[in-house]
């Protein structure tokens, strides 16, 4: 396990290069380039806020950042899960001629997505500073924890899925369905109080996605520190995912090359 991690560190030039190459190729020949990471969620949020604001009669200025925070983080999770599941298949040329640890290929996907998330979160921060300046304070530092936490969740998750998806190519298709289902039962766009009011409060209280989002939403949108419970749920998720990925990797890591 330890030597596996040092190998990942040794090949850092390679996977960071792959990540940056992914970013470059994504916006090659586009006029706005990487600015699309900001424009896209912003436009989508405006759209949704206007529609939802009319339907649910909520204040658009405060509802918009709620949606935006949910959107960029959920976008990160789905992109890392689905993109990560295909990471080995996509990197087959490299896997067939070099003996780098396979986890660098999922790390590449996750690292790319983290950069995109970082760009997109600038919009959120700017919006909140303008609309709710009173929320600014030391507790915003806690919101920064979202980056390492998301990385540590998405990386083992993507690796775990990639081991399976290399062999069962149906997985990425099924995955988008599963993620859609998770989206419906989590307070990502819908406000948590909708769930909390009724019998569905378990969907919030024991939902790691809710606790994950709270790490950003509590400081930015409510002006408070995230609770210990929020962090505990994230830590639990991280440990569970790392354990599953490591356990599966022990037997699957070497066999991946046969399925490419």
């Amino acid at each position, binding site marked *: 396990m330890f030597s596996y991690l040092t190998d990942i560190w*040794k090949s850092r*030039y*390679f996977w960071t*290069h792959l990540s940056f*190459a992914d970013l470059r190729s994504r916006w090659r020949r586009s006029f706005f380039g990487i600015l699309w990471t900001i424009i896209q969620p912003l436009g989508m949020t405006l759209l949704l806020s206007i529609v939802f604001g009319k339907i649910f009669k909520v204040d658009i200025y405060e509802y918009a950042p709620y949606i935006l925070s949910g959107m960029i983080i959920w976008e990160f999770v789905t992109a890392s899960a689905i993109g990560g599941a295909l990471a080995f298949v996509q990197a087959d040329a490299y896997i067939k*001629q*070099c003996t780098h640890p396979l986890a660098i290929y999922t790390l590449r996907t996750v690292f790319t997505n983290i950069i995109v998330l970082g760009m997109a979160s600038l919009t959120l921060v700017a919006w909140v500073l303008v609309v709710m300046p009173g929320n600014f304070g030391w507790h915003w530092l806690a919101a920064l924890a979202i980056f390492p936490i998301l990385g540590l969740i998405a990386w083992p998750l993507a690796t775990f899925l990639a081991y399976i998806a290399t062999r069962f190519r149906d997985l990425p298709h099924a995955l988008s369905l599963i993620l859609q289902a998770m989206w419906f039962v989590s307070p990502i766009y819908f406000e948590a109080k909708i769930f909390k009011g009724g019998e569905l409060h378990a969907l919030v209280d024991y939902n790691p996605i809710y606790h994950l989002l709270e790490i950003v939403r509590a400081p930015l949108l409510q002006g408070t520190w995230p609770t210990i419970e929020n962090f505990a749920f994230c830590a639990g998720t991280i440990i569970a995912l790392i354990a599953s990925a490591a356990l599966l990797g022990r037997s699957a890591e070497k066999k991946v*090359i*046969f*399925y490419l």
Partner: protein
Amino acid sequence: MKNNQITLENINLYYSSVAFKERSLKSLLGSALRVTRKNHEIHDVHALKNISLDIGPGERVGLLGHNGAGKSTFLKMLAGLYPISSGRRRVTGTVRSLFDLSLGFEPDASGRENILYRGLLLGLSPSFMREREEEIVAFADLGEFIDYPIKTYSAGMQVRLAFAISTAVGGEILLLDEVIGAGDANFMAKAKDRILMLIEQSEILVLASHDFGALTAICERGLVFNHGQIIFDGNINDSISFYQKSIEAK
């Protein structure tokens, strides 16, 4: 000095048949409905059978055998790409392998950028690659095309660049699979010199080839493969005559 060494004990390698059987929903339903056909059953491929071997420092080993005899699998197993199913494999020393040269280019990036990318793929640092860049550019000899995207290259030009990059750095253990034979005649001569230089630098060489001339010139020891087994191990000249006899016997 490190003692470069390859030690193999009772190595077996299987390609699992699950990997290349059709596993779609369609075939699953099909096989459930149809009476099982026996004639087309696919089994696990036993690609390397019970191989035990020692290769010490300074040895130059040539691999002989018809297509599908297990030479490439043997090399990829040595490189650590293919997992062994049983046995023990110990390789001491840095391994540099030249198998499929044209893999892993980025078509939209320029030749010069791809030099850096390939170097990173081989596990080298960016500063080291910048040092070597000019030398690689000079060897590939692509003129102004080096600053053009790879997708504008002809197949031959791609091979030349790939060859120049992959052979820029040697290793203590060098594994070659039929790489001599890239580009036009002029480049061929240059490539041959370069390969020979790499071979001289390396401590251990394992070369798979059908070119008997190259084998006798470079190697001292020969291994003859047949159906995943080593059927002859000895002096290269004896190995070649053994291999030729085994072909004639068929």
